[in-house]
């Protein structure tokens, strides 16, 4: 990503300080604006002049670090020669959406920025493909399981904070009940089913919950059993998020201990997509997965 230092040629007004919400939409919108600008052979200086702003503001818009004014986007689209009304209105819609406050702002005290960004991605996507090697995916966790996982990550946190974190995770699952929810296609290693996080009773309930979740029409679960030997997912847990708009690239999300990596360059994304495809082909079918989870629940 372009990380040009802001404040080059014109003083900043301070109005552009990024609100945390909608980061990903801004990032996606910004990367498309950059693509259009470059395709039109226009420099950041020229684009900045067109909207009465600095080159650095264009740079910050294109990397999603500032909010968009709909008028600016409108002017830039015209300047870049985008005349198709449908394309223009999609862009303007995204620009508007990206400045809307999100439900998770009430949790901002416990949410690191990088995860807040992920929530934006998650709720804007139409398809989420995930590969899990350790824990059940956050969207599928029971409250007790989520509490056990949270305690593992925040050993010294007071009980009240743990409960707020669990609350956030459960609230996030509203996504599954939303009208027009994203499709979630999750492949998990058998280890996810076998590791009794929170003890046998919690894990058994979690597995029964997984069986129920798998019945939702927009959810697909697949397990890669130990018996399949080594598999393509040696890289660990990751997610690929896809968006409705044809011109928006897939985004790969990889969570780390103190932050997260977002990949959107096609060559990077394609590598992960390839691993995901291969895993999906190697894993048990959804029907066999349901039976497999049932068996795992009985064996705890």
């Amino acid at each position, binding site marked *: 990503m372009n990380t040009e230092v802001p404040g080059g040629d014109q003083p900043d007004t301070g109005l552009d300080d990024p609100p945390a919400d909608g980061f990903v939409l801004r990032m996606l919108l910004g990367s498309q604006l950059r693509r259009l600008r470059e395709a039109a052979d226009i420099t950041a200086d020229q684009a900045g002049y067109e909207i009465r702003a600095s080159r650095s503001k264009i740079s910050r818009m294109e990397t999603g670090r500032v909010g968009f004014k709909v008028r600016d986007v409108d002017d830039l689209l015209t300047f870049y020669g985008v005349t198709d009304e449908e394309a223009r209105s999609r862009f303007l819609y995204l620009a508007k959406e990206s400045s809307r406050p999100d439900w998770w702002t009430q949790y901002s005290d416990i949410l690191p920025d990088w995860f807040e960004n992920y929530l934006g991605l998650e709720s804007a996507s139409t398809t989420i493909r995930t590969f899990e090697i350790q824990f059940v995916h956050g969207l599928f966790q029971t409250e007790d399981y989520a509490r056990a996982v949270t305690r593992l990550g925040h050993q010294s946190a007071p009980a009240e904070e743990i409960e707020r974190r669990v609350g956030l995770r459960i609230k996030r699952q509203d996504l599954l009940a939303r009208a027009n929810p994203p*499709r979630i*296609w999750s492949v998990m290693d058998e280890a996810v089913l076998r590791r009794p996080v929170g003890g046998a009773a919690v894990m058994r309930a979690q597995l029964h919950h997984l069986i129920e979740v798998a019945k939702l*029409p927009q959810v*697909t679960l*697949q397990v890669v059993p130990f018996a399949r030997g080594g598999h393509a997912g040696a890289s660990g847990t990751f997610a690929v998020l*896809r968006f409705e708009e*044809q011109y928006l690239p*897939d985004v790969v999300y990889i969570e780390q201990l103190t932050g997260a990596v977002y990949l959107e360059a096609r*060559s990077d994304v*394609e590598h992960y*997509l*390839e691993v995901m*495809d*291969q895993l*999906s*082909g*190697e*894993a*048990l*079918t*959804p*029907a*066999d997965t349901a039976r497999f989870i049932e068996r795992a629940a009985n064996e705890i």
Partner: protein
Amino acid sequence: MTSDDAAAPGSGTDGRAEPPPFDTSKAHQARMYDYLLGGKDNYAADRAVITAVLDIYPDMAFTARANRAFLGRVIRHLAGEAGIRQYLDIGTGIPTAGNTHQVAQEIAPESRVVYVDYDPVVLAHARALLTSDEAGATEYIDADLRDTGTILTQAAELLDFSKPVAVTLISILHALPDADDPHAIVAKIMAAVPPGSYLGISHAGSDLLNPEMVNSLEDAWRGKIQQQITWRTREQVLRFFAGTDLIEPGLVRVEEWRPDPGTSDTRRSAYWAGVGRKR
């Protein structure tokens, strides 16, 4: 119902082939088609071949879209006027908008659709994305078109072969060389369904492009694609419909088969298409 375990290699009665290895270094027909339709499930090698193809034959993109639209019109006709409630969709490909069961179940929610593909990764996409209306059902079979025994045995778990079935072979038969005797394969499948069943086919037509263009296309993708393409003449494609009566307008270019009113496009596809009703 069907499981991966049940489809172990060698379990078929005739011509069971190993599934293709997952390979993104060579273009794949399902992924090239996905790219032409504006999908995102394709890789650099797929896009490179399509870019070369479009240089030679710019209307390939039109052909892909016209072929997709043909599938929609066929299923709408079969589910509507013809009253068909069972479908055997062989060569499913990567799901996109307006898949067989969606079109059929929109008209008749109780419609049952069996999807067949020989590529486990393509079929994994189908299983994840082609989920049925509650009133109907979808099932998925990992099988090569040449393995008619496996296809018919497993399809019989969901479909009632004493009632009419619509068999669709959309843009797949040209993946079989003459050595595989695709006409005999189609005949075997159609022998298993009762009179009043339907057969829908679209197929690359060697007599729809000039021979030099066909040669240039083959040069462009030689060694770079996983499936070979056998172009066939109208007469060869017509023979697939043996034992059926072609419904109006017969075997025509894919965009000319009962076009939606108001459709006018000067471009021409390179696919033959038709629907026959079994006698």
